[in-house]
C-alpha cells in the first residue's frame, strides 16, 4: 500500500496568539511571547517567567459545543480550540464527507495541570512532622473533601484525544503518546503512518501541553533546565547562543489535519504540504543526558530521510528542536553535522522556541505548522536573541531576522528527555 499523506488544515493556540496568520507575522517580526508568570505566584521561584497563553476562552472557539467540554483541563482546552480551527480550515463541516470510523486522533498531549491548591492542602493536612510520615487516613479525609472526581479524571493524558473524538465524531484509531518534548512530532509522524498503511483516511493530530503550574516549574527548576534570566526574560530563550542558560517554559497546542492524498484531492481540499518521512529512535543511553555523540538524534534524522526517499542535499531548511539548553543545542548541531556532512553549514537551521518558549509535548506540532507556513511563503522564521555564537554550534541559525528562501523540502526535529528522538520531513505541495 503506497498512500500519500497531506496536510489540509492547521490550528494553534500559542503564547503569541491563536490566529494562524497573525501569529506567523509576529514570529517573522521576532516577537517574544515570554512574560512574568501569572498562572500562579512564582515570584520566589528561581524562574519567574514563562510563555503563557493569555486571554484564552474555550467558549470563543467551541460556541454551542462548549457545554459538552467545559470540564476539560487547560491543555485539553488548548487542543480542542486548535482542533476546531484546524478542522474548519481543512474545509470539513460536520456533514458526512468521511466515514467516521476512518477518522482518527493521534495526539502528543500532556497531562492536565494538577489541582495544586487542593492537593497541597491535603498533603499538609496528612503530613505528620513528628512521625515524619504521611498519615493516609488524615490525608484521605481532606482529599475526599477537596479533590473533584471530574477534575482529577480530566488530568489523564488521553482526555484531550477523547474530547476531540467526541467533538468531531472521530470513531477511528485514537491514541496519545507522551514521549516528553518529542511527543507531538511523534504523534504526527505516527499519524502519518496510520494513514499511509490504510488504518485511517483522516487524522486529527498534534499536541498540547501546559506545565506552567507550581509543580511543573518546580520539576524543571530542580533539574536546572530552565533559564533563570529573570531580569531579561523577554530575551531569555537563546537557542544556539553561547550565553543561553536554559529553556523557557511555554504552553499551548498545535493541531494539524492529515489526510490521504486522493481523498483530499477528491473533495477539493487545499493541500498545504505533504508529510513524506518520519523517523523515531531511542538514545538508549542515559535517563539524564542525551548521547554525547548524538547517536539517536542522528539516526532519527537519517531514518526520516530514508523514509522520505530524499538525500540530505534535498533539505532546504531545518526546524531545530533548539531548546536553548547547552546540551541540546550542542548535540543537535553535532548530529546535523553528522547527517549533512560538509553541507551542514549551508542549511539554514532555526528555532522558534526563541519566541514561543518550549511547549514541551506541544512543541513539535506548533513547529511543524511554522514549517508549513515557511514553505508556503518562502520565508524562514528566525532564531531570535542570537548575538553570541557558540563554537560548539557552528551552523547557520538564521539569526534574528527572517530570511527569504525557496523551500521545497523541510525537516523538523524534536528530542525528548530520556533520549527520545523524532524527525519529520515535509514537502511543498505539488504546483
Amino acid at each position, binding site marked *: 500500500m503506497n498512500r500519500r499523506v497531506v496536510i489540509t488544515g492547521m490550528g494553534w493556540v500559542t503564547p503569541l496568539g491563536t490566529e494562524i496568520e497573525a501569529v506567523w507575522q509576529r514570529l517573522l517580526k521576532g516577537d517574544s511571547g515570554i512574560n512574568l508568570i501569572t498562572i500562579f505566584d512564582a515570584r520566589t521561584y528561581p524562574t519567574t517567567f514563562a510563555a503563557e497563553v493569555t486571554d484564552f476562552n474555550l467558549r470563543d472557539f467551541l460556541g454551542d459545543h462548549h457545554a459538552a467540554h467545559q470540564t476539560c483541563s487547560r491543555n485539553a482546552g488548548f487542543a480542542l480550540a486548535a482542533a476546531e480551527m484546524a478542522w474548519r480550515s481543512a474545509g470539513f463541516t460536520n456533514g458526512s464527507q468521511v466515514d467516521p470510523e476512518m477518522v482518527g486522533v493521534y495526539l502528543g498531549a500532556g497531562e492536565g495541570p494538577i489541582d495544586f491548591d487542593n492537593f497541597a492542602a491535603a498533603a499538609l493536612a496528612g503530613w505528620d512532622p513528628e512521625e515524619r510520615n504521611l498519615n493516609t487516613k488524615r490525608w484521605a479525609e481532606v482529599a475526599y473533601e477537596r479533590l473533584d472526581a471530574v477534575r482529577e479524571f480530566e488530568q489523564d493524558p488521553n482526555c484531550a484525544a477523547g474530547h476531540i473524538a467526541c467533538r468531531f465524531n472521530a470513531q477511528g484509531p485514537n491514541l496519545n503518546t507522551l514521549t516528553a518534548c518529542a511527543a507531538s512530532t511523534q504523534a504526527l509522524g505516527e499519524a502519518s503512518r496510520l494513514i499511509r498503511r490504510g488504518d485511517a483516511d483522516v487524522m486529527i493530530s498534534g499536541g498540547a501541553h501546559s506545565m506552567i503550574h507550581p509543580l511543573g516549574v518546580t*520539576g524543571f527548576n530542580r533539574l536546572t533546565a530552565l533559564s533563570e534570566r529573570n531580569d531579561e526574560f523577554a530575551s531569555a530563550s537563546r537557542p544556539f547562543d553561547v550565553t543561553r542558560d536554559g529553556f523557557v517554559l511555554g504552553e499551548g497546542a498545535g493541531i494539524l489535519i492529515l489526510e490521504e492524498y486522493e481523498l483530499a484531492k477528491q473533495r477539493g481540499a487545499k493541500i498545504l504540504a505533504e508529510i513524506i518521512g518520519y523517523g523515531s529512535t*531511542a538514545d538508549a543511553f542515559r535517563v539524564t543526558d542525551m548521547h554525547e555523540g548524538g547517536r539517536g538524534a542522528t539516526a532519527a534524522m537519517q531514518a526520516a530521510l530514508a523514509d522520505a526517499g530524499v538525500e540530505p542535499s534535498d533539505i532546504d531548511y531545518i526546524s531545530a528542536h533548539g531548546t536553548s539548553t547547552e546540551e541540546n543545542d550542542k548535540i543537535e548541531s553535532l548530529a546535523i553535522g553528522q547527517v549533512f556532512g560538509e553541507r551542514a553549514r549551508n542549511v539554514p537551521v532555526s528555532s522558534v522556541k526563541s519566541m514561543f518558549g518550549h511547549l514541551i509535548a506541544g512543541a513539535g506540532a506548533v513547529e511543524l505548522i511554522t514549517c508549513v507556513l515557511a514553505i508556503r511563503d518562502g520565508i524562514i522564521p528566525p532564531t531570535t536573541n542570537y548575538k553570541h555564537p557558540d563554537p560548539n554550534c557552528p551552523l547557520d541559525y538564521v539569526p534574528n531576522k527572517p530570511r527569504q528562501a525557496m523551500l521545497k523540502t523541510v525537516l523538523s526535529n524534536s528530542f525528548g528527555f530520556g533520549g527520545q528522538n523524532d524527525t519529520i520531513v515535509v514537502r511543498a505541495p505539488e504546483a
Partner: protein
Amino acid sequence: MSERRVVITGLGPVTPIGIGTESFWAALLEGRSGIRQIETFDPSRFDSRIAGAVEDAKVADYVPKSYRKASKIMARDIVLAVIAAHQAATDAGLKTKCLIDRGEADGEPNIDSRRFGANIGAGLICADLHELAEALATAGVDGTFSMAKWGNEGMNTLTPLWLLKFLPNMLACHVTIVHQAYGPSNTITCGEASSHLAIGEAFRTIAGNTADVCICGGAESKLSPMALMRQSLGKRLSQRNDTPETAVRPFAADRDGSAVSEGGGLVILESLDHAKKRGARIYAELVGFGASNDAHSPGQPSQPHPEGRGVAVAMKKALRDAGLTPGDISLAAAAAAGLREHDLSEAKAFQTVFGERVSELPVMSIKGAVGNNGAGSGAIDFIAAILALYHRTIPSTINSQSPDPACGLRVVTNGPIDANIEAAISTSYALGGGQNAALVIRRYAE
C-alpha cells in the same frame, strides 16, 4: 495489509499472582486471586481498601549490577516495566545487553540494537505522595501552604532529578537503556487501552519493516493513596473489603466494581523471519489489530458508550485486519474489569460483533485475580490469552459464578477447560477517554 508476518516469542507478565510466565500461568490454572487488603499504607478512610500488589518485585534482581543505582529514580511503574522487560527477553531467548551483563546469556547479542524497538503503555504516574507531602510540608506557614516559602526554600528539599521519576516515557527509556534497543520507540498513554495500542502499533512497526523485534506492552501501579483516591472519586471500586479475593466479579450479576492493583506485562514481537532464523519458540502469530474511540462522552468518568460501539468497531477492524470472520474466533479475552456499566457495554460489543454465536463463544477475564492497574492491564490480559491459545486451555474466570443475564456471554467459570483454540481476540478500553483496541492472535502454522 501487513507486509511481514509478526509472531510472539516472549512473555513477561508481572502481576499480583506471579512474576514470569510459569508462575502466572500456574496461578491462573489454580484460579488464585492476588487481591488482598491493603497493607502498604493505612487505607481505613477509603471506601475500597483492597488491592493487588506485586510481591518480591525488586529491580536489582532484574538489571545489570551497573544499573542498580538508577533504581533511585524509578517510580514503581518503571520498576514493574523493567522487571517485565527482563522476563520477556529471557522468555524469548533474546541475548540482550542486560542478560549478557547479568551472565544469564552467553556470547554476543542475537539482535541488532538498531532494529530493536520499544512501545510501552504508561499511565499518569502519580508522584510519590510521601516524598511530595514531606517536601510540601516544609512550605507550611501556620498549617497553610505558602507558595512564597515553597519557591524560596521548600522546593529545594526535592531531589534534583525528581521530575524524571514520573515522566511516562521513562518506562521505555529505562527499558531501552537496559536492553540496548535503539530502534523506533514510543510511549502510549491511553488508560487501560494503552497496552493493546502499544502492542498493535509495535505490530505495525515490524510488519512495515521499521524494526525486526519490539518489546511492547505496558505497566502501571495504582497501588498508591493518590491513585486509589482518584479511582474512589470516580466510583470505580468494589467495596467488598472483607472478601478481597472474591471481590472483583467480571460479567457477574452481583459485580460492584474493580480493585486497584499494580502490574504490567511486556511481550516480544518479532518478524517471522527473524524468529525462525534464531530458532525461537513461537507462542502465536499476531494477525489483527483494530483501534477506535467511542466518540461518546469524555468528561464522564464512569460512562462508557451504552451499546459498546467503540469496542465493537475495534473488534471489527481487528478481525478484518486478520482476514478472519467472527466464526473463526474460539476465545475472547475480555477486558471486563467488574464495573457495572463498562462490563455491560463490552458485552454488548461482543453481541454486536458475534451475533447469535455469542452464546457459544468462550469468554474469559482475569480481573478477579489481578484487579485493574491501568495501562498495564491490557498486556496481562493479552498474555493470558496467548497462554490459553498456546496451551489449548482456558482458565476459569474467577468470582463470576453468577453470570449477569444482561451480558449474555458464555463466561468460562468451570475451568480450566481444554479448548483447541485456533484464534483468539483480546479487547481493551480506557475507563475514561473513549479509547478502545483489540488484538487478534492465531495459532502459529508455517
